[in-house]
């Protein structure tokens, strides 16, 4: 199936791309400070500018990059860094299975290409477009690639800015990580079960951080608290 067959004529294609560009602008603006923070954090963790940028180019997953950079800076081994990256990004399986319904008709190389760009933001935009109109490959492609380019460019800007700040830690720049995560976390705490999971993760992570070496507290807290959330979810569905 050719891409052109999915939409009837050139004018329609053009319009779909413009709608995608217009609708993703606020999201793109929101991504920029995260990318800049990512670039600065890389340098803070003693990574080179090139290493930091390469991570954005190849991995393209905000939260897991922040975590990976933090763990690299703490001198942790490759095994735990890659395992944690896998855990943080497991939620992509949900996004992917949700998109599978629509993407199944695409040729596999195009599916494989689009999958690389599957972020929370691209997913949210594409799904809301599906609810408003129809599934459009061009829409998904536009939103995905724009978000990717902006993420990489913002990382480059962060790396450039970061190298002008001699010792970012004395400016409290390492506080940027928890502050950035707070903005991501707080909208997720809208209902009771999420608050219970938050409480569990907070207690387990602090206790584990006190008694376990390295950053194992992240993995332990994530596994136990999310499992309890899942059990609560199951219990409420069966009630």
């Amino acid at each position: 199936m050719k891409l052109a067959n999915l939409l009837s004529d050139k004018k329609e294609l053009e319009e779909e791309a413009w709608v995608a560009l217009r609708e993703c602008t606020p999201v793109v603006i929101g991504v920029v400070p995260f990318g800049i923070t990512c670039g600065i954090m890389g340098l803070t963790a003693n990574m080179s500018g090139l290493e930091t940028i390469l991570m954005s180019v190849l991995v393209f997953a905000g939260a897991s990059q922040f975590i990976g950079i933090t763990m690299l800076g703490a001198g942790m081994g490759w095994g735990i860094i890659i395992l944690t990256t896998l855990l943080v990004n497991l939620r992509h399986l949900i996004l992917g299975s949700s998109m599978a319904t629509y993407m199944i008709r695409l040729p596999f190389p195009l599916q494989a290409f689009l999958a690389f760009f599957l972020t929370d933001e691209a997913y949210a935009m594409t799904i809301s477009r599906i609810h408003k109109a129809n599934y459009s490959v061009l829409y998904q492609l536009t939103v995905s690639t724009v978000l990717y380019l902006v993420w990489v460019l913002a990382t480059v800007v962060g790396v450039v800015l970061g190298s002008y700040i001699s010792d970012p830690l004395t400016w409290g720049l390492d506080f940027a990580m928890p502050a950035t995560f707070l903005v991501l976390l707080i909208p997720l705490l809208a209902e009771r079960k999420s608050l219970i999971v938050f409480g569990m993760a907070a207690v387990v992570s602090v206790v584990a951080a006190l008694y376990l070496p390295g950053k194992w507290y992240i993995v332990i807290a994530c596994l136990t608290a999310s499992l309890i959330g899942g059990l609560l979810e199951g219990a409420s569905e069966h009630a």
Partner: protein
Amino acid sequence: MRNEVFYIILGMALVTYFTRIGALALFRFIGVPTWLNRWLKYVPVSILTALIVPSLLLPKGYLDISLNNHYLIAGIVAAFVAYKSRNIIATLGIGMSIMFILKLF
């Protein structure tokens, strides 16, 4: 570029890509099992909490619940700003300013 860092980045890229293509390849016909779906639903809240709370309560590796812990004070203010504004620029701006001011005194 250090070899070890390059391989770690490559590994992160591979597992991340796996999570993105995996569902498409695996659940194309059957859908995600319900139990897994429930479990994965709370992964974002858990992991974000596990990253934020210890970095505010144990910034230097030991539990520090006091007014001398700048990370905790700035964190509480930043949480409030994030709750009210839902805005990354406002939260980072105010949080970092408080960190900077506290470090001056």
